[in-house]
């Protein structure tokens, strides 16, 4: 073990980075694929069906209990789906722009796998008692990098829609771009309060997601509190925008089967289509990871129970590898639970109409996000300048008046 660590430490940093990156991709890609099966199973269970439960290599039927169990769980459908994707005929329609048509799935995959760089997925306690985050690149731009790269994902949709040279994909691409632009605003505005809270004025600031988790692992009532409790409105706006950004139902305008055949991927088949879907799940994973890091305490198991405490209870503080694995397991568990939430919502809420999507984005979420931002700007100012109880009371009164004004005068019976 020690020898292995020595060899690892002796490696060229570039090689180390490549290996780490491949390891992370090696985890994300299969989870992305597995999500497709989980989606099928969850949807089936919610609709009172057993879901896929047939495929099985014939020799596996001889394994006593495990065989039928895995068959009922549909585990082999995952491989069957994958194999089908790989070995299916891969048609390229004659009327498409071949270069961009082939480029689009690649462009879809790149941001989905790149954004994970700035997302920490675990931590361990080093010799001095600090929690060191496990991530590919602990850069200060952190969240900005995630936002910047993940919004590139829409280019894949536009590219696919445009290169397909067909009307439905084209409409799907246009809708995707309009939707992403609309919701990106609220999403970013919803996150600003978190970082205003974290970064005191006059100090060196950081947008690193690891810093956000560190902030939620402090001792004390307010210190150990997750941001979802401090900023519920931010969390909700971010969550709704996340659904829109990842093109999940109820916001999957880009691929609304009812009105757009298949949306942007109508002309795609086999593995190219599969890449779009792995990319979608990749986006979901990164999106939920970001939400968990910002609002749900990252790899801390429970609110007010930071990882360092758990390490002390389990005497894992001096075993960084075990503790790191534990934190990764906690974090991935949270991410998977969140992906289940995505699926749960998808099979509950019907798709919005396009005008409803736009209305929700621009008329509801954006003002809400701006109001929320103003509220927290004032709150942070009062808190950090110690303006006293009177200022807090004024803020509370102002909020109530603003909420009343916003809610008491509905323009007309809303269709949303």
């Amino acid at each position, binding site marked *: 073990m020690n020898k292995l660590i020595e060899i690892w430490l002796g490696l060229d940093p570039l090689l180390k980075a490549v290996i780490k990156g491949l390891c992370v991709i090696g985890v994300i890609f299969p989870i992305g694929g597995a999500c497709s099966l989980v989606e099928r199973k969850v949807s089936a269970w919610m609709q009172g069906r*057993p879901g896929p439960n047939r495929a099985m290599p014939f020799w596996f039927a001889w394994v006593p209990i495990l065989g039928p169990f895995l068959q009922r769980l549909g585990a082999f459908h995952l491989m069957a789906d994958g194999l089908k994707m790989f070995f299916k005929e891969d048609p390229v329609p004659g009327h498409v722009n071949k270069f961009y048509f082939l480029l689009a799935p690649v462009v879809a995959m790149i941001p989905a796998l790149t954004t994970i760089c700035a997302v920490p997925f675990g931590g361990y306690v080093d010799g001095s008692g600090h929690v060191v985050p496990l991530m590919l690149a602990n850069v200060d731009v952190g969240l900005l990098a995630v936002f910047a790269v993940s919004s590139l994902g829409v280019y894949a949709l536009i590219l696919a829609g445009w290169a397909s040279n067909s009307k439905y994909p084209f409409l799907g691409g246009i809708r995707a771009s309009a939707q992403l632009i609309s919701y990106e605003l609220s999403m970013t505005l919803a996150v600003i309060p978190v970082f205003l809270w974290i970064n005191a004025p006059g100090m060196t600031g950081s947008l690193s997601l690891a810093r956000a988790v560190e902030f939620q692992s402090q001792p004390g009532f307010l210190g150990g509190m997750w941001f979802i409790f401090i900023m519920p409105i931010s969390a909700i706006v971010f969550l709704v925008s996340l659904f829109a950004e990842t093109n999940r139902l109820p916001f999957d305008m880009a691929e609304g089967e009812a009105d757009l055949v298949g949306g942007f991927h109508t002309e795609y088949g086999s593995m190219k289509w599969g890449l779009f879907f792995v990319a979608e799940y990749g986006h979901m994973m990164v999106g939920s990871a970001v939400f968990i890091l910002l609002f749900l305490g990252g790899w801390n198991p429970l609110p007010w129970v930071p990882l360092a405490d758990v390490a002390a209870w389990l005497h894992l503080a001096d075993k960084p590898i075990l503790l790191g694995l534990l934190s990764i397991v906690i974090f991935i568990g949270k991410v998977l639970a969140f992906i289940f939430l995505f699926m749960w919502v998808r099979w509950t809420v019907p798709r919005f109409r396009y005008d409803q999507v736009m209305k929700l984005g621009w008329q509801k979420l954006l003002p809400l996000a701006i109001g929320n931002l103003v509220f927290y700007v004032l709150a942070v100012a009062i808190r950090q300048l110690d303006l006293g109880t009177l200022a807090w009371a004024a803020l509370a009164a102002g909020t109530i008046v603003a909420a009343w004004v916003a809610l008491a005068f509905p323009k007309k019976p809303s269709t949303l």
Partner: protein
Amino acid sequence: MAYVVDRKSLSLSERFYIPQILAGMKVTMRHLFSKTVTLQYPEQRPVIPPGYRGVPTLVKDPHGREKCVSCQLCEFVCPPKAIRITPGEVPADQPERAHVEKGPKAFDIDMLRCIYCGLCQEVCPEEAIFLQNQYSMTGYTRAEMVNDKARLYELGGTLPDQHFKWDKKKDAAEHGNAH
């Protein structure tokens, strides 16, 4: 008369939308853990209710005798012309049925044409043809989908019968009071 539907304006919780979504999610979560309502078809078969109109079949009477007298009413009434009957005489090895005079030499129902309307069953004066509970007909060739006489009797089996029409006719003839 035209009338105006009163549209209720949305309540506060409906305007917030989130409580409504949560209520919906509660429902789906309940379904997630409830029992499935589907049938694992090839292994589990549905219960066929009485009176089901499945594949038309020929039936025998409780003595195991052929009931069809090849009157060809079903052939004539069949809307898609799925039934073809070649009439013949009652075989010589069944002397006790000689008075019936006729029986089908061949009886074919083309299941690619059959529309399961049940008119053949309705029209049959001998209650010899019944649409029974078989619902799944498959085959690899067109020829396989044509049920011949042997197959029709195999599918039909024997059904209970109170009339024994031809026995009564024979009795009546023997006692000299043919109607």
